[in-house]
């Protein structure tokens, strides 16, 4: 069978070198094109590299803790179909008599290919949801059929033997690194203000009614995205990123062109920050469409690398079930993040009268190396003004 080379694809714009964190498969394991094969560490995060082909992992060339350069070959996969994943380079392996293909170090399990595992539909569904290998379960149903109870027992057993301390998932690791970096290197301060939603709630209904039935419904986040984009254009000093060591002459504040805004999306045991680029050019309908698209794909783990990069600012909105107010930590290398408290009816004074209005508390966290308190508070005041106004662009 042909051998396919597994190489390190280019991931970030500036990425050149990576460190192999760990291999998720061992030699002899069968792999499926597109499934995570190894984890590498870039300067930004830990990233999973997908298998370049379906077949059997026959040799690992670069082991954990070793460094590789983009384009380097790190393993061989023996593949019948030589199917190549889009991100990886592949080349047929030369059959060099001086250099015979090594024998796999571990015994290859009996080929299960083509052998159908007798199982019930609901057992298959649960196994797929929980990442349980059906082939590893002894079925107790008729003729050894794997049933729901068998899968449930396997899940329970896995939970029972799972050690109390677990290694980090790659997402958790990337998150831990980013947040540690943020807290250690970025001097952060916060400013708060409350915003009244009365006008926006009405407009949201009116605009939604004007959109075609198949458009996504406008959410408060869509209005926040447009308002922040506009405010960032008016306060370019905040629409920037800080890079380098403040002690060194290389330290820079780099202004961004356009408003590129991240939206924090909670997922199981972690979060994702898909970035919507060029928001200042978009109407609410298009913002909603892009927001829905990237949140949906994000939840399925289907975001491209560039869709997670390039923002200067993020929104963290914990929604209607969220807290009244909270403080968010900047996601490096961004320079600000807006924490949006839940909308709630509050007693407020308006024109000397006590009235009830829907309000949220907005808390803006800012990188003090980039901006100061006066700029941040003026930015926030302007943002509130936009959010409470009627000046919106729908299309």
């Amino acid at each position, binding site marked *: 069978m042909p051998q396919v080379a597994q190489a390190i694809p280019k991931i970030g714009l500036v990425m050149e070198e990576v460190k192999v964190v760990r291999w998720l498969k061992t030699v002899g394991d069968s792999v499926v094109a597109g499934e995570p094969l190894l984890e590498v560490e870039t300067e930004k995060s830990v990233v999973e590299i997908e298998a370049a082909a379906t077949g059997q992992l026959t040799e690992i060339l670069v082991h954990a803790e070793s460094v590789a350069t983009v384009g380097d070959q790190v393993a061989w996969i023996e593949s019948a179909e030589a199917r190549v994943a889009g991100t990886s380079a592949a080349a047929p392996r030369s059959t060099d008599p001086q250099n015979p293909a090594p024998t796999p170090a571990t015994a290859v399990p009996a080929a299960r290919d083509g052998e159908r595992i007798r199982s019930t*539909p*609901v057992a298959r*569904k649960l196994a797929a949801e929980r990442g349980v290998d059906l082939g590893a379960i002894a079925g107790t149903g008729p003729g050894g059929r794997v049933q729901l109870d068998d899968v449930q027992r396997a899940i329970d057993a896995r939970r029972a033997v799972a050690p109390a301390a677990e290694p980090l998932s790659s997402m958790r690791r990337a998150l831990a690194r980013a947040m540690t970096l943020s807290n250690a290197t970025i001097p952060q301060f916060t400013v708060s203000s409350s915003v009244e939603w009365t006008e926006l709630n009405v407009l949201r209904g009116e605009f939604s009614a004007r959109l075609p039935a198949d458009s996504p419904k406008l959410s408060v986040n869509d209005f926040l995205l447009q308002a922040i984009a506009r405010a960032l254009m008016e306060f370019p000093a905040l629409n920037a990123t800080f890079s380098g060591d403040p002690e060194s002459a290389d330290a820079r504040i780099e202004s961004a062109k356009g408003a590129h805004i991240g939206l924090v999306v909670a997922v199981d045991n972690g979060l994702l920050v898909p970035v919507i680029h060029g928001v200042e050019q978009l109407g609410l309908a298009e913002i909603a469409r892009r927001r829905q698209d990237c949140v949906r794909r994000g939840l399925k783990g289907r975001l491209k690398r560039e869709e997670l990069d390039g923002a200067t600012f993020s929104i963290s909105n914990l929604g209607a079930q969220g807290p009244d107010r909270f403080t968010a930590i900047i996601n490096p290398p961004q320079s600000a993040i807006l924490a949006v408290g839940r909308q709630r009816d509050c007693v407020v004074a308006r024109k000397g009268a006590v009235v009830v209005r829907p309000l949220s508390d907005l808390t803006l966290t800012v990188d003090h190396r980039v901006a100061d308190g006066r700029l941040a508070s003026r930015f926030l005041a302007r943002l509130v003004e936009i959010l409470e106004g009627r000046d919106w662009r729908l299309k």
Partner: protein
Amino acid sequence: MQHTFIEILRRALDEELARDAAVYLVGEDVAAGGAFGVTRGLAQKHGTARVRNTPISEAAITGLATGAALCGLKPVLEIMFIDFATLSMDCLVNQTAKYRYMSGGQLAVPLVVRTQAGAAGGAAAQHSQSLEAWFIHVPGLVVVAPATPAEAYGLLKSSIRLGEPVLFVEHKRLYTMKEELAEDAALPPIGRARIARPGTDVTLIAYSAMVQTALEAARELADAGISTEVIDLRTLLPLDMGTIAASVSKTHRALIAHEAVLNGGVGAEIAARIGAELFDELDGPVNRVGCPFAPIPFAPELERALLPGSADIVRAVREMME
């Protein structure tokens, strides 16, 4: 106070006759009380114009009742034994069920056909059949099959008020079953099943007298630690797949039990729909319990041997739970 199935049906008919002047009863011997005494005394109370005897011709009287319904009355026709509904079928299938559709909705046939089905002890091959599956094949008909006296009371009233042609299948073995009638109970909707017994391990779908058999089996299974959810379909056409889906999504196992033969039965239709619509919820094949493919014998011993009972259901469920 408890009443028999027959007494409760009589009360429902009596109240509907009193409530709506368009309702009338028609059929062989109904003025004399009918073969089972369901209509006893109603001719004396409401007059022979509204409780009418007919000659013995199911074809003719089904046509008569369909015509009366087209002209604005709400006849309740009794076909003595579903076995003889075969003689009504040309009218029911080609006329009664088609008028609303072929008139573009201008005509309606608010007709209820009451009929008796099932084996009840030595009535032999021509008076014991369960032929309801023939009717669920016909668009335009509604098929109702109650499982208890109180259910029959509400379902008969709902059928009379529905405004569509309804085949109302009464099981002869239920006729002597007694139950108390809640005085202010709301009428059950047509087309909605009910959970006769909640459970978590297996869904047992039944209708008519088989619901009682299923409940008996469920009690026995509960002693063995198996929790059975019993669904009483109540209406066979249209089928309430929502209730079935909710239950099967919880238990992941389904068994359908009916007295009719399995071939081409109501259970086959339900099993096919569970397989197609709930495939990912299943933890085993959908099973059926029903009559072997044979005519009902006359000899009581043979009849008992043939009819599916609670032991058959218990055995089937135990096999599914292995």
